């Protein structure tokens, strides 16, 4: 089955005009599967970390959102230990007018603004609410340890 024009164009644009701090490279044997890296935003506990993610465009993309997962271990209330991400635009608030670029930017923004009130990793969210300073410190340590 040939690749839809939209995916080809998105890939071309990502290559020609990459987002600072974000890269997404498709696999040669499966152009719907991307290796993604996101740099942790500055002034966040994830600063200087480089996080690996995988991104897959399902068959009915862009009608359904891309499937994205963190491969790098990360301490974040909205990302669980399997790397799954709790982000509205990846689920119910997806719109076909969004694209890989905007979604990756949203994820980067999520790193800068953790939301423990809408948790996916309950234990992390609880720590975050009980002792925000400590949680941030843990996040920083994890970043240094894993996100290299």
């Amino acid at each position, binding site marked *: 089955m040939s690749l839809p024009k939209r995916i080809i164009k998105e890939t071309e644009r990502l290559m020609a005009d990459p987002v600072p701090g974000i890269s997404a490279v498709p696999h040669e044997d499966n152009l719907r599967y991307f290796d993604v890296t996101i740099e942790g935003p500055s002034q966040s506990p994830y600063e200087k970390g480089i996080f690996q993610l995988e991104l897959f465009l399902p068959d*009915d993309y862009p009608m359904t959102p891309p499937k994205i997962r963190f491969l790098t271990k990360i301490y974040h209330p909205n990302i669980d230990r399997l790397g799954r991400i709790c982000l509205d635009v990846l689920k119910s608030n997806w719109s076909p007018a969004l694209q890989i670029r905007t979604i990756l930017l949203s994820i980067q923004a999520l790193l800068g603004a953790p939301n423990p009130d809408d948790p996916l990793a309950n234990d992390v969210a609880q720590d975050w609410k009980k002792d925000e300073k400590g949680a941030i410190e843990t996040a920083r340590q994890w970043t240094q340890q894993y996100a290299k």
Partner: protein
Amino acid sequence: MNLLQRTACSFADSGEQLDPPIAPSVLMVDDAPAVDPPEKGPLGAHRDARELVRLVQCPCCSKPFTSPVTLPCGHSVCRDCLPSPQPRPNISYPNTPDRQLAIACPTPTCAAEHPTGECNIDVTLAKLMELIKAEVAKHNTAVGDNPVLLEEFLNYSSGPVGEKERGNRTAHQRRLHGGRLVSTFVMADMGELHHTSDVVYHPMGEDSEDLDSAVLERLQDVAHRELDCLVCYNMMLDPTTTACGHTFCRRCLTRVMDHSNICPCCRRDLHIPASLQDQPSNERLVKLLNRLCPDLVASRAAALSLEEQPAVDELDVPLFVCTLSLPSMPTFLHIFEPRYRLMMRRCLEGNKQFGMIMYNRSGALQGDLGASSFVEYGTLLEIVNYELLRDGRSFVETRGVSRFKILAHGMLDGYDVGRVERVEDLSLAQEERLEAEERLAAEATAQETRRINPDAQLSAELQVNMLSTQDLLVRTVSFIERMRAHSAPWLSARILHVYGGPPNDPALFPYWFASVLPIAEEEKYLLLKTNRVRERLKMVNNWISRIEGQRWTSGSSCSIL
């Protein structure tokens, strides 16, 4: 052209005396009616400069659009040309503030009133106009010279509107710069070129043909870039604009509505039926595309049909993985999943057929398909009745056409597609020969068994094999009659109304029987795999024997029959 009106020229801007005026119809190569030009064919920058400018002129103020609004009727006007909203009496549903007021449609061909909530800036057209104006301004200052004398020829359509307009308008004449295309645009921008008027050009300097072409090329480039659909990233095909002012390919918008009823751009609710059948296309954008880049429109349409309908020996049969359907029998479906909504739409546009296959619940290997999530034999269904609900779900009534075996399969936009091979019954001659052989062999075995032990019980299989195909049918029919006499619930009038009475054709009878009999679908599925009528009747007899066996052993506790 025959209604062309010529009023006195005003020579306000030019001291020169002109030759006796020539009717524009003589000058114009393309003798197109002014108001509604034919949609086909690209426009030449020099030859059709007037036509090109008309594409972006507001039908109300005749100036190039400023903040255009595309109305629910598909026509566009400047926002400032909208009449002031009036309260709508006697309307209480839907009771939202943006529907309490309405404007009377200012376009001549539409007499409807449009609620203010549906009169929003057409984002695409507005952006395009900004870019066109910027482009024209750039050329206007850069080129400077290249004077042209433009003479307006009033050209009213008949009817009350034309009559009224004629009264207070006079034709203009202008000496402008920048070649034909730019100067015509500027004249319209000055408000001195009525959108129905024609223009006669009197060249005053060197010929501007090359210049016009260059301008048009730039404009085409701008239009091409701006008229990409935000869903498919292709040039818009049949652009359709939402009430919130966002434009998508009609097909893309329909697909979006399979998934949700909010606008992909602004997330406002789309209060339109999911089929979009009454939603007009954006008339102005359609015209712009068709007349600015007809080649691209044609190639886009061709590419799309190629994308959606793969070549003959490719994966050309959509596969619905859901339930067991049987040939000549009805299957009723409630379509709600987005991917199947899309599939049904494409089916209805095509040959109205799709394959129905069952999930492979047992996980058994499926022949050449190996470990597959669905079974390898299915039934080709034809849509006989399609009822689309307002929210995009649908009820579909289908009838089994033929059986097939899947040879290869893949995915298309989220649903399965396959290449299939039709499964036919053996010829009657083969069927007869096999019946004779089987019965002879069974008779021989039976005689042999009785010879050894006269009291021996013949195996059930042997007993069945000895029966003629006709006897097999008679047995099943008499079973049906017995069951009917017992008022079996699966033979109620309601069910028979849907599936009809038992067919007389022994080839079809098992399908009918399986459709009404409440047994596991995996059992019924075996009917699809065989290509012999006798085999199918034997299976049916087998079920009957088991059911009757059950009844004898379990007495009255058998609840399904």
